[in-house]
């Protein structure tokens, strides 16, 4: 299992961004202060700013065009010559209301998506924190082998198993419900188990030892000491779960058969493949579906980037 070893090292190395222990934080801070190369020449710095502005434009222009299109009235052409990259003439904010409450009924899809997302976050936080605690803090026979299994399942794409999983859930009578989309997250996720375990390992062991002297059992140590200290990494896991399950298309498209139960992704995909959806409403719906992820990203930006550094976003 040399390969699994190498993966572990590669990932622990990148993980410094979310390490709580003081020495690690000091170390990364010191390197950060000096490792960055401060360009001295004015010409070079100006050139870099111009480059950054061009790249940011590449990111922002499509987003601006989308907002422009979403704010247009039904009869105004979305594709104009020259292209309008930013909203200037039309401000039909009611388009968003029409998407949510009108015949497209995106409010329902949003609620459906929120149900699945909340279920997934609960499942992931409960199961992964328990399992990671066992790997990080408890001694048991087979711990090494089982941890290799975690790493291996991290490398197998779950999509390869979607057919037998579908048949299993179908036989259980769960087809058409949210259960196949929520229940698996209560069985843990290898990436998050790995991430939380790495974090928990950095919490000083003296805390456990002191707690044991005081007569706390394993559960009490987990619940009263380790879990409260792990909130930063748990936040990262919750945010990742939010983004992943909010954006998921394959799962809902396999298991949901009724328009009433669709999630935002499925509804949007149907909207674009169905001819005749007005462009302005399509773009408004698209923008609405993006807003929660962007908001969540802004609120937890710093923690998230540390976490992404450790697992990779689309991992």
């Amino acid at each position, binding site marked *: 299992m040399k390969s699994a070893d190498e993966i572990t090292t590669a990932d622990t190395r990148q993980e410094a961004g979310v390490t709580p222990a003081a020495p690690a934080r000091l170390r990364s801070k010191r390197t950060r202060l000096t490792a960055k190369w401060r360009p001295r020449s004015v010409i070079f710095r100006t050139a870099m700013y111009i480059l950054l502005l061009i790249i940011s434009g590449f990111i922002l222009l499509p987003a601006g065009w989308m907002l422009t299109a979403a704010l247009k009235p039904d009869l105004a052409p979305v594709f104009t010559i020259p292209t309008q990259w930013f909203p200037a003439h039309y401000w039909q904010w009611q388009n968003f209301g029409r998407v949510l409450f009108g015949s497209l009924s995106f409010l329902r899809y949003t609620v459906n998506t929120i149900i699945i997302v909340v279920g997934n976050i609960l499942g992931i936080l409960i199961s992964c924190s328990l399992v990671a605690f066992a790997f990080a803090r408890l001694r048991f026979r087979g711990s090494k082998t089982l941890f290799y299994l975690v790493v291996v399942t991290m490398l197998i794409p779950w999509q390869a198993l979607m057919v037998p999983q579908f048949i299993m859930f179908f036989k259980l009578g769960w087809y058409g419900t949210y259960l196949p989309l929520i229940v698996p997250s209560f069985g843990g996720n290898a990436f998050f188990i790995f991430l939380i375990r790495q974090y928990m390992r950095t919490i000083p062991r003296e805390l456990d030892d002191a707690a044991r002297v005081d007569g706390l059992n394993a559960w009490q140590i987990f619940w009263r000491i380790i879990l409260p200290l792990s909130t930063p990494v748990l936040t990262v896991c919750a945010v990742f779960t939010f983004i992943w399950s909010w954006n998921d298309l394959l799962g809902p498209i396999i298991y949901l058969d009724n328009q009433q139960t669709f999630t935002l992704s499925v509804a949007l995909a149907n909207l674009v493949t169905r001819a005749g959806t007005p462009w302005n409403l399509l773009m408004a719906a698209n923008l609405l579906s993006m807003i929660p992820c962007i908001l969540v990203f802004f609120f937890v930006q710093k923690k998230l980037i540390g976490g992404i550094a450790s697992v990779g*976003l689309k991992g």
Partner: protein
Amino acid sequence: MRLVLQRRMTARFRGWPAPDRGGRPGPASPGPGAGKRTVFGRAPRLPLSRTRRREQRAAYLFLSPWLLGLLAFWIVPIVASLLLSFTDWTLIFKPHWVGLGNYRAMASDHDFWNSIRVTVKYILLSVPLYMVVGLLLSLLLNLKLRGMNVFRTFLFIPSVLSGVAVAILWVSLLNPDVGPVNQALRAIGIAHPPRWLADPAWAVPSVVLMGLWGVGGGAIIYLAGLQNIGAQLYEAASLDGAGPWQRFRFVTFPMLTPTLLFVLLTSLIGAFQVFDTAYVLAGSQGADGTSLNFYLLNMWTEAFTNQRFGYASALAWVMIILAAVVILAIFRTASRWVYYEYDPEKE
């Protein structure tokens, strides 16, 4: 040495892990021929003390959600899918054994070969491009300039958006006749810009270009790798008279190879999982049916549209085997180009 051993013994006597070991096998694991290796890598297995037994029981209780999940969502499906791949099953009738028939059928299946071609084309175009652009971008974002945090935020936003939403946005931007991209290209004098998704030859490159919009997500991973490089290495290199290029070539790049390995692995596995974009684009106006039939989309169609569950399972197994071959091949060569810094903490 004796001290360490003593601490271990006391620790075992108390029934709790030694404080310095972090629950992992200690360095004092016996060399070859030092008796039977146990899971803890030392000493022959002794009956566990009461406290240790209790700890072990607790551990398995904590692990139980994952163990159940592993059984229900991994082990059973893996076995089931292997068995299914040798059958012909439409969910309605009883499965019927066809042996290697599904695998043989692949050889003459145009859709299958087409999906392989599309996926390989995507890998060849996207993986090198994203790795190079991501790396360059991270070098840029690592510069110490005022307002850099704002730029980082902007560049990062597209990578938290859903594949569906991004595909919907770009299918309109890349509209061959009236889309803003082609208008811009015409404005700068390209009279006949590519027809992007509408042109089978340009469909995969279009998807690759769309993905470039979210390349900031990859840049963040490199950025974290860059910030873990010790400043003393750069100082030493400067003292030896290394210029900017040499500092990159002999310090930054070698120290970043573990990150590159990680990104290479995840992006190769990711290429087999391209679904959202392909589903939206293949279904929407413009693209024809086959030019964006990625591997996973083809598998999904066989399973859930054509109801060929046996055949889809065989496709899944080919996917697992291909992924395993790729991963093993990369690990085989990794020791030649991946550089691991000596880390005394790990010893």
